[in-house]
């Protein structure tokens, strides 16, 4: 399996068939209002079941996209809050040593890192629910299905046919709406193109965000918006020091937010 990963990888950008992409996201935390539209859009798009009691209970409620709220902990009038939408970070690891935390621990090869798209997959039919990946993921992205999915009567007709419904006993997570890439590719192929335009492949949360805080695209394509946004001096990634090399960037002009996101201890932080 490992050799396979090495093949077809390298500086093949702009080489036609073997071209590689790094799909990623830049989330502007200054724009995020914490409305939760991304979470709702994600659940509708990816067939996530919901329950009457939607409290913060990991036994009964799964989210792929989750909005966290943090505060600077100071008393009024200095108190500030910040919402952090957190999809799967699609960690690449450095130097391609396959240090995507969840991928390296999976005993069933139910998840892999695609060097073509940079997307970490999750194959529900292959997963047997050991939950090693959940323990390994530093972002708490992965969630376990404790129950079979249930929808209110008639609502199963509204399910997205492009996304598998998950059964009890398997782990699931955000896929960067990979089925949307497949759909966009189908259209491109029929039109005789190999390349998918930036606006043809956008995740559900990106399109749903009313504040325009979420930007999605190919991080190594200079024509895409995320290419420049990720290089902002205010950009950071969650728990960067772990070396997971995630593909979700956050932008905040607030110093305390950047520090909180990086979680450096003492003098570890370098800016």
């Amino acid at each position, binding site marked *: 399996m490992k050799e396979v990963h090495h093949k077809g990888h390298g500086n093949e950008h702009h080489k036609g068939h073997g071209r590689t992409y790094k799909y990623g996201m830049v989330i502007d935390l200054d724009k995020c209002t914490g409305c939760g539209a991304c979470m709702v859009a994600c659940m509708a798009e990816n067939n996530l079941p919901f329950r009457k009691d939607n409290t913060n209970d990991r036994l009964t409620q799964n989210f792929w996209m989750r909005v966290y709220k943090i505060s600077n902990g100071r008393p009024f009038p200095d108190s500030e809050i910040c919402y952090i939408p957190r999809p799967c970070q699609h960690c690449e690891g450095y130097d391609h040593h396959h240090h995507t935390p969840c991928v390296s621990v999976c005993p069933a090869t139910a998840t892999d890192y695609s060097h073509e798209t940079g997307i970490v997959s999750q194959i529900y039919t292959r997963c047997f629910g050991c939950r090693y990946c959940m323990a390994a993921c530093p972002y708490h992205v992965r969630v376990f299905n404790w129950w079979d999915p249930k929808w209110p009567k008639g609502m199963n007709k509204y399910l997205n046919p492009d996304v*598998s419904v998950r059964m009890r006993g398997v782990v699931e997570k955000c896929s960067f709406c990979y089925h949307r890439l497949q759909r966009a590719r189908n259209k*491109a192929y029929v039109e005789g193109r190999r390349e998918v335009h930036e606006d043809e492949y956008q995740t559900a949360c990106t399109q749903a965000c009313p504040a325009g805080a979420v930007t999605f695209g190919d991080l190594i394509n200079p024509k895409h918006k995320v290419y420049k946004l990720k290089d902002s001096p205010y950009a950071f990634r969650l728990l960067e020091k772990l070396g997971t090399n995630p593909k979700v960037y956050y932008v905040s002009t607030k110093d305390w937010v950047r520090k909180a996101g990086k979680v450096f201890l003492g003098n570890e932080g370098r800016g």
Partner: protein
Amino acid sequence: MSTTEEKEQTAGEQGGEHGPEEATHEPVKPGAWRFLIPIVAFGAGFVSLLVLGWVIFPHLLYGEKQQPVDFSHVVHQEAVDEGCESCHFFREDGSFSGIPKLENCVQCHEEPMGESSEEAKFIAEYVEPGKEIPWHVYARQPQCAFFSHAAHVKMAELECAKCHGPVGDSDHARPYQYNRLTKYSRDIWGWNIAGFKKKTADRMKMDDCAECHEESKGHKDACFVCHK
């Protein structure tokens, strides 16, 4: 008397008379054929179990259904201009239409076009009441699999027959067989009960997809290429 006892007795008799027999070259005594009994019994059991496994078991495992209408691809191939894509076409959004809906059939078949009894049945049962034909799909994959016809037919320019076999040359709809346990079409596992295949179209399992991807692209591809 049980077979084992018989065998022992036979062996004992033979052992006792072995020496003189060889020395005098007397003819074999009647009853010496009894040592054949366990061999024959084993052979009969072996053969009957082989028959059970190779002939009867497939019938237990696979159910068979006839297609609702005996469709002739040969007749239709002659009548259309664009080959397979005349009926199995791509939509503008890149998705593949698969098996045509009734509205496609009705474009030509509002009235009977020939004198075949199957066509008359098709018009009376489906066209007139406006009912979709409940075709059994030979190539239906499990729901966790994603297959892009656009990628294979438009980009890689594969022939339909590479995976589907020479369906276009069939004059009758062959029976549809399905696995009674999984409900998947037998075409996925392949018609050979041992799972052997000679041609690319003989089997449609994940290994068969991966085999071709490895040949053409040098690697098996990431999971999400074919899974959803």
